[in-house]
Structures are given as C-alpha cells and as structure tokens.
C-alpha cells in the first residue's frame, strides 16, 4: 500500500528524520510525506508517531499502485 500523508506546517529536517521510511517534500504551509506502508499496524503506528510529535495530520490517502 502506498500512502500520502499531509501534515500542517513545514516539518524541519529533524522531524522528517523521525519518519525514515517515508519520502517527503514541502508544499505551501504543508509537508507531504509519502511511501510504502506495510500494513494496518504500520499505518496506525505512523499516526501515533505524528500524534506524539505534536504534528497535525490534515489529509491521508492511499495512492494508486
């Protein structure tokens, strides 16, 4: 499963380093992280990581293969 996750604000390199399994680019007032998500457990783990770093997830969608 490939996912794209949009986070409010521009994440610093330090913070994006906390998601080494995802690639990212910075858009206007948003950071877009994308990459392969192994399974549901990984997905929820990612969400928990965003939550614990005080990041605000504004959008999340599965990408077509």
């Amino acid at each position: 499963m490939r996912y794209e996750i949009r986070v409010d604000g521009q994440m610093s390199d330090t913070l994006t380093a906390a998601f080494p399994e995802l690639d990212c680019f910075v858009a206007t007032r948003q950071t877009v992280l994308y990459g392969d998500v192994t399974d549901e457990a990984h997905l929820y783990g990612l969400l928990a990581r965003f939550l614990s770093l005080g990041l605000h997830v504004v959008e999340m969608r599965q990408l077509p293969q």
Partner: protein
Amino acid sequence: MGPTSHSGEGGRTDPTVGALTPTGDPVLAARFSVPVVPQTFVHRPRLAERLDAGVQGPLTMVAGPAGAGKTLLVADWVTTGGLPGPAAWLTVEPEDSGPGVFWTYVLQAFRHHGIALPDHVGSPARPGRVDHSLLTRLAAWLDGREVPVILVLDDFDGASGSAEVADELQFVLRHAGDGLRLVIVCRAEPLLPLHRYRAAGELVDIRSADLAFRSEETADLADRHGLPLSAEVARVLTERMGGWAAGLRLCALAAERADDPEGFLKDFEAGQSTLADFLLAEVLRAHPPETQDLLLRTSIVEETHPDLANALTGRNDAEPILAELQRANAFVEPIGHSWYRLHPLFAEILRAHLRVRHPGLEPELHRTAAKWLSGAGLLSEALPHAADAGDWDLAAAEFIDDLAIGRMLTGLDAERLDGLFAPMTPEASGPATDLVRAARELTRHDVDRGVAYLRDAEEKLPDDPREAAAAQLSCAVLRVLAARVAGSADMAETAAETAAEAARALPADRLEQRPELTVLMLTDLGSAQLWAGRFDAARATLSAAVQAAEGPSTAFPRHEALSRLALIDYVRGWPGHAESHARAAISEAEHSGLPASVRTGVAQLVLAAVAIDRNDLVAARDHLDQGAASSAASRDPIVAVELALLRSRMQLAKGDPQGALQYLDAISQKPLASAAPSPWVNDRIAMARAAVRLAEDDPQSAVKVFEDEPPHTPEGLVAEARAHLADGAGEQALGILDELSDDPGRGPAVAAWALLARAQAVDALGDTAAAESLVLRALTVSRPHQLRRPFLEAGAWLGRLLSRRPALAQGHDWLVAAPEGRSLAPRTSQGSVLPSPEPLSERERDVLERVALLMSTEEIAADLHLSANTVKTHLKSIYRKLAVSRRGEAARRARELGLL
C-alpha cells in the same frame, strides 16, 4: 458542588511526601501520584464544571492531542477537592495493555490513594486475561460503597490497543452501580462503547475544541508568566496557535527571554514550520548549551534523576539545571523523590533532535542509563534500556544477577520480560544470555532446545556452585523445570541439590525478595517426584512450596502445588484431604484472577474423581468440564491422562463400557510427552482397562490386562485381585491381597476396595462370618467420605450378602441415599437391600428413650427399677438391631427410623 469549590489553590498533593509502592520504586510510585500543577497553570472553571458534571455519571472522557493540557486540567481538578468521593490516579503505560497488569495497577492505585480494598477481591497473578470472578468481586464491592470512587486513567492510550482491557473496564463500570466514576484521559478515543453512554446521557466528553484556550485564558496564562497582554494581542496569539496549550506555553517561555515580550508575542510567526518543533527550537536556543545538552541526552529516559542525568551528560551539573528548568516551568515536572519527568511531547521532539545532532549516540546513552538504573536497583526500568542499546549480554547479566529469572516463568511480568528478550541477537553469548534463552524455550515447552541452552550455560559457569551463585541458582532452577517436563525425578533431585548449594552462597534477603524462585523450583521438583511415584517425597516438597509467601509472583506455583497435593491425597486414598487441598488450590486461583484456561485443571479433576467415587455424577461432570477447560490438558501428561481416565470412569458409571474404552484407546494412541514412564499412572490406566473388561463381563481379559502390565501400587494390586476374583480364582486373589503391605499412608478409599475384595474372596470360599466382618469394616471406613463407588462396583455377591444380613448395612443409609437417588447394588432384583430393622422390645424402647435424653446407665437403671447390668444387656441388643456401636449413634439412628 460547583465551580467555586475549585477556585482555591490549597489541597495540592506534594509528591515529595507521596508514599512509595511496596517495592519502594519511586518511578513506579510516580504513576500513582497526581501530577503537580505548575504555578503558571491557568485554572479554567468552565472545564472544571464539565468534570464536576461528568463524575455525577459513570464516564467522563478528556480527549485531545499531545500538549492540549488534558493531564494538568484533571490533576488540578482532582487536587482542588470537592469531589463526590475519593479519587485514585493511574498513569497508564503501554506495557499495561495486558489485562492482568492493568488491573493490578488499578487495584494498587486504589490502595495508594487510601481506598481500602477488602482482601477477598484478590489480585491478578498473570499479565494476560483476568478471571471475571475477580472483576465481579471488584464491581460488587464498588457497588456496595456509600460514596463512589473516582478513577482517573491518565494516558489511557497505553492500554487503548487492548480490546480486552476495554471490555473488562466496561464490565466493571456496568456492574459497579453508582460506586465507580471513571475519568479517561486520552489522545485517541478508547474502545469503550462511547455511543451507548452518550445516547444514555451518561458520558461527558471534553474534546480538543473544549480544551483549546480562549483569548482571555491566553491572557491569563501570559500574565502568570509575567507578561501582561492586551486583549488584541491575546486574541491574535490564540488564533494563531489554535488555542493549543503547549504552543502557548512554549510561546510564553520564549517571550520571557525576549527583549520586548509583548512585541515578540504580537509579531510571533512560526512561519510555515510545524509549531511544536519550531517553538521548542526557539525555547531551547534561549537556554545555555549545557542545559540543551542535558535535555537532549535525558530525552531517552521517561523519568530522570540528577545522578542519572549526570551519568548521561558526563558532567555533574544536573541538579541545578533540573531545578532551574522546573522553576522556569519549562519541560520538566518533579514527580517526587528527586525524580523528574519530561513533558512527553517535548521528549519525543527532543529525541528526534538527538538522533540528528548526535547520530549513533543513542545506543550509548541507553547503555549508560541501563547501568545506572540497574545500579540503583531499578531492574525493571534498566532492562528496556539495555535492550534498546542492543547490549543483550548486559541485559541478561543484570537480569540473572538480580535473581529475576523466575519472573520470566510466572507472575505479572512474564510476558513483558519474554517480549523484551525476544529480539535478542545470536552474537550475545554469555552464560546469562544462554540462561535467558533456555527459560524462553522452556516456557514454550521446548525441552530439547531449552536443555541445549542450559548445557551451553553450564559449560561457561564455574564448576563450584558457590561461584557465580545467582547464575548457578538460575541454571539449577531451570534444570529442575526441564527435568519435570522430561519426567525424571532423579535429574530434578540432583538439580535441586545444586540449587540449594548455590542458594546457600547467596545472602538470605536476596532470596526472600524472590520468593517465586524457591516455590517454582519446589513445585517442579515435587511434580517430578509425583510423576515418578515418590509420593512421600513429593508431598513433603509440595507442602514446602505451599508455605511460600503469597503474592502475584507465587500464586500460580502455589496453585499448582496445592493441586498436586490434592492429587497425591486422592491417589493414596484420602478423599477428604484431597478435597480440601483441591478447594484451596481453586481458591488460590480465584483470588489471583487466574482464568480457567491457565489453571492446572488438576484440582477440578480431583474433585471430579472424588465425586465419581461418591456416585455424584452430576457434580463430577461439572468438575470434569472445568478441568478440561485448562490449557494444561494438552501438554501436562498428568492432566491429559487423568482427564481421559475420569471420562472413561464416567461412561462406565453410566453403564457404557464401549464409550469408556474409547477414551482409554485415545490415551494409548497419543504417547505421553514425558520421556520416562510413570509407574502409578500406568497402573491407573491398567485399572481403568480392567474395570471396562469387568463391566463387559469379561474377567479373563481383565486378568490379561494385569498380566501385560503388572501393577506396582496397592490400588493396582487390589484391582488385579478383583479381576482374579471375577475370574473365579479366589486363592490367587487372596495371595495378592496378602502381599499388600500395611502402609499407614494408604487411606480409606484404597482400604475400602481392598476390604471388599478380601470379603468377596472369603465369601466365595464360604467363610460368611469373615466376609460380613470385612464388609462391615469397609462400610465403616467408607462412611465418613460417603464412598459409594466400591460398593456399587463390588458385584452381585455383595447384594446377596447384604440381603442375607440386612443388619450389616444398618446405620449406613448414606449408601442408598445417593445424590442421584440411585439405590445400592442395582444388579440385585430383591428390592431394597436395607430392609427395616428388627423390631425393638418394649423394654428396649424404654431404654432407648432414656438414652436419647442423655441419661447415664445408672440413671436409666434407677428410673426403670432395673439393675445396671440388665440395662447394659438391653443396650447391646439395641446396638445390634440398629447396627450401631455407640449411644449417640443409636439415638440418631432411632430418630431417623421414626422409633422415637
């Protein structure tokens, strides 16, 4: 109760005087203490009112993202008083998702906050599922309270992944009536059926939008930081932060250090960065490099102590720095006993910074933390860091050195510790590492691999058991366990001797702190001895195990030892002792919330066996089903065999020999797990086979069973004698019975079978008087235990004998008053085998009436104008007719028969 009750500042809990847990662990104690609210905290009456309203009903939920100010809101509300009852606080951690661990901490939180739980509620002894009986007792106790208990579960997300914890919480909440008010603080909604509570108007939820600061609250916060704000600046700032408490707090901290604080706040613009990270970087920058370094390095531990922080920084300035950070209300909060906790959100971000700024430093820091924590006696806290450092030899060495190996085998920590060592890499090769690997294999019942690791460990350990005593003791305890599974009492006894020698080289108080180590070893040793048929040794060993201190770590081995004591009693023919040991074993399990699946099942099987002997088949079926619910049924050979034997006995008692045989065939098709055979277990299987043959009226096959499998035990020999008797070989039977030794350890149940077999033999030889006297003795030994089975299965001769001499069965109406109303000797067609007694003469009746009035022989003689000797003669005649031997029995019997 209104908001005014919360406006004061008094009544705060001072964590530095908070009680420690029974183990004296300050980090653990911190989980039960209400966090301290900083001076800068903004009291918000609108939210306190919502909480007040919430605890009028069963459930309140405070849900919001990290840094929304949830914990402090509830902490402030709890400490300012005015609650409808006492409050207990628990900060849930991820390892609490095991229900057993979760409920242990809940009960501990109650006690920590002075809410006296009655002992009968018990305490879980396993990390996994908790038996509902424990939760029922807890709920019933809560329901019976006059004032409710308020339970605050902070950081509930730690357990939110567990549907079981949620179900159980829901169960207790539903059944606690008005006795429990739950306040859940979480980031993500818990798995409770919130919609149902909401629909019933029983839920108050305070969510992100409610938690968000309003402009006037922002102004208040800034004011508390010494930064007066105009309404306009407060509004702009609130809007920009989305009312996010952590953001506002960081802003205020950053502004405090700015030249023009108001200007800073007014023009503050995080740009396009994410808020927390940006703000934290801002705030960090304002601190000296030493402080920044300390914060980064201590971010790897949940809680820190000045000495631990010094170890991590390699400096010795932690104490003033932590005090300054606390004074500035930045990042750290005191949790008592000189310990501090970093705000979890900031810690998380700091860890991200640490990884970027000092790549590769993290494992080193974890190793340092592990060493310091272990040195401070905080093994539970040290192990995860040793694991995070990937230093498995260190983790295992600390673990073994702490004599903690037993905790991996039993108790609340077992699963956590097993999981902790699961990622262990093959490079780790110290003896301690091998021991940990052996323990993990043995808990999975893989004896071969377990023993291989034990051998590796032994090669690395010194030959003298007194050197490296902790590792030697751990190794020996595991050896005993392996020997038990292999069914070798010799190996178990040898290993137990090594264990004792190693234990002598250790300080007594260290062993006392690890009661599970001794009780596990004794239970395993006793089980191996039992398997080998060394009943007296097994009984002594298991009795010693039962003497161990009660507690979660010893609950399971105690339960197992009691169950096996019950089995020994049963096999040796003592149904009364067996029953009381079995009941004690079950009560131990219930008290510890052990679900039926993890109990040994042996206690229930013993109760079933006793019930079958009493011909109470309804109770027997019930006990059998409960025994079969144990997961031990699939791997403990004793449970597996007994279960099949008892099912076979049940079928036989119901008159279905074919069904009985099927269960027995199933045993022989599935070879026992143990390497060494057990003589008495084989005897019991042979006895059951022979019983089926006898029921099928095929005594020759019954005799053949014992020819193939010569019995070793008294009960086996008796069964062999009965087979010969049925086959018409009375002399041979008597020969076997004569060989039975006069073992004082043999109880009434074995004696009853033996007496009846002998009676049958002499009856067949025509010695009726001797047969009658033997039957009478069999009746006498069986009566206190109501053992009906030996008489029911004795055969037709007994019915004939009793109908010839009905007085024999006088006083034994228990025999026919079977629980299911079955009458004795169903094979006889002569109606009741206990006909009405020989009628009493008028004089005898007069004497009996006075006996019932408790008159002495002399008094009766005087009253009836008879000589004392005449009265005695009448008494003897009464005794004979009523088939009793004492005055009290005579009176009771006469009343039962309606003679008085």
